């Protein structure tokens, strides 16, 4: 974890102080990717953060803060431009897909503030918000390793890319840290949208003996939930789980009286958005900086909603490893190469 978060944790109190006068001076908007503002994932989370920020400063949607939704790739830049031209001081691009758009618009409008989530754009007027997903994934790996009966886990990724590899590496590292003999079955869907393919992959993995699957596959992950719930419905005694991603996916796991969501790796995009907005409001906009939100600053969390499955024992083990990470005792791998090195050291 890097230092960016530490300063910002104080940001909230600062923001509150200035709420009265600041309202009209500093306005903030965000542009979603194709998932839309209600994607139950980071777009939604970001919007919740922005709304919270608005409430905090008694602003209303359209006057003070707003969002623009993109239908497809070609809409990112026009949406940004429109918001800038509507005099929003800070515009967030939510998701790494908006990287190019932020890059371009920040050059065109050097006097505006911009922020990008999930990737890094090097420009003096852009704040890059990233998350230590590998750390959170490490903890879900720990939880899964504690929970598994078959010593076989699954990881379903959306698209085989640097970002998703972070989830994969962290998860595997976490699991193997608990029990080096655990096998992790890894497969990528090829996209973030095909629930059908997600389901097919989950079918195979559960068939092959995996009992817990961590997905990082967006809407394709719905297929993983569908398959887990199906198996649970057929045999309620079977211990079968999914680990959610980005936000607490407890709701998705509900099946009758049971719930197949063991836990979720939660990215607090809302917190990040709220904090960066407050920094901007206070004239401390972290332009040109890369803010890494990690375990330490609660930018990454792990859900414990499913108290039945997510036992005390697991919780305490997870806490133990969390401390090791925040202490710096454990350095979580972010790539497959780093993972290899990590495993060798085990």
């Amino acid at each position, binding site marked *: 974890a890097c230092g960016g978060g530490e300063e910002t944790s104080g940001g909230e109190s600062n923001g509150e102080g200035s709420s009265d006068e600041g309202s009209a001076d500093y306005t903030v908007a965000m542009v979603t990717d194709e998932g*839309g503002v209600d994607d139950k994932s980071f777009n939604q989370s970001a919007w919740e953060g922005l709304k919270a920020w608005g409430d905090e400063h008694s602003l209303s949607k359209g006057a003070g803060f707003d969002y623009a939704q993109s239908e497809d790739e070609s809409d990112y830049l026009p949406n940004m431009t429109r918001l800038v031209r509507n005099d929003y001081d800070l515009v967030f691009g939510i998701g790494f897909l908006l990287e190019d758009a932020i890059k371009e618009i920040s050059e065109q409008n050097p006097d505006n503030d911009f922020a990008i989530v999930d990737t890094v754009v090097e420009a003096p007027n852009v704040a890059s918000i990233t998350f230590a997903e590998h750390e959170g994934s490490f903890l879900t790996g720990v939880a899964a390793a504690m929970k598994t009966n078959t010593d076989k886990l699954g990881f379903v990724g959306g698209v085989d890319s640097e970002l998703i590899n972070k989830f994969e590496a962290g998860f595997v590292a976490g699991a193997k840290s608990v029990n080096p003999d655990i096998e992790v079955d890894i*497969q990528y869907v090829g996209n973030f949208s095909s629930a059908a393919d997600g389901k097919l992959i989950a079918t195979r993995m559960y068939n092959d003996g995996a009992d817990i699957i961590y997905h990082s596959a967006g809407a394709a992950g*719905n297929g993983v939930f569908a398959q887990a719930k199906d198996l649970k419905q057929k045999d309620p005694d079977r211990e079968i789980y999914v680990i959610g991603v980005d936000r607490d996916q407890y709701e998705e796991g509900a099946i009758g009286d049971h719930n197949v969501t063991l836990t979720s790796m939660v990215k607090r995009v809302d917190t990040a958005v709220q904090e960066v907005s407050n920094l901007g409001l206070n004239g401390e906009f972290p332009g040109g900086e890369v803010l890494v939100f990690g375990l330490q600053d609660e930018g990454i969390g792990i859900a414990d909603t499913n108290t039945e499955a997510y036992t005390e024992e697991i919780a305490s083990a997870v806490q133990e490893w969390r401390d090791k990470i925040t202490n710096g005792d454990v350095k979580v791998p972010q790539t497959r190469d780093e993972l290899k090195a990590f495993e060798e050291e085990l």
Partner: protein
Amino acid sequence: MGFIELLAQVIPPALFFSAPLIFTALGGVFSERSGVVNIGLEGLMVMGAFVGIVFNLTFADVLGPWTPWVSILVAMVVSAIFSVIHAVAAVSFRADQVVSGVAINFLALGLGIFLTKQWYGKGQTDMVSQPFYTTDISLLSDIPVIGPIFFEGVYVISYVSILLALLSWYIMYKTPFGLRLRAVGEHPMAADTNGISVTKMRYVAVIISGAFGGLGGSVFALTIALNFSHATIVGQGFMALAAVIFGKWHPLGAMGAALFFGFAQSLSVIGAGIPLLEDVPQVFLLIAPYVLTILALAGFIGRSVAPRANGEPYIKGSR
């Protein structure tokens, strides 16, 4: 992994993956056999998925485990009504049928998302609590070898789709209705001079395709996606259309084509976990179903000839 195990791995998913395509393709067969081209299958599936999910969400508490079944029925009815738009355009207004099908696709998605936003205040619905679940079909699943492959952990609805294909074949080839339907698609004027109302037959056929498309869409939504959003139905309708043509406009052919797609898809996804195919770059597995289809067409399926009057509005007395 043995061959049998492989089959046991691949076939049940192939079946569930195929079912929505089978339903929708059957709808396409009815419509096109009557001479109405149906590019709108995609839109009909969207409508079915939307209605199936919305109904399911709304009535899950009342209907309990029957919810998915009632949902697909309601989806059938609503999509059938929706398809009347295509029928009116294509049959009564003599519209270019491709154009009107494209309009159906735009309209269904636009309406579906628009209404979702109106009713749920967001671009996608919640997940349904009463989807379809797999079961082991009693007795049949006990058959050695075959049982586990075909009857363990399958959706009953998959078998409904196959039965429906058989039923469609029976209707189309054994009943007066079917004979008249095919006559209308081949030579509407001949049918007309034999006292068959071309308009009525085509309306009925398009409405059937609406019902089947709705069925396909809702089954997809209630077995696989479990919610409705703009990404629920993306291209399945076009795959169903491909199945119609691949299957040479024959109900059983369309079913076979849909099963082939399902099998290829299943194999390509599951293949990544099979030792033999593990080292094949993923992209080859991803494109395999589509390339296989093209090869199959080029290799041994060959020419498929559309019903003679497919796509042509019937105007009395023109030649």
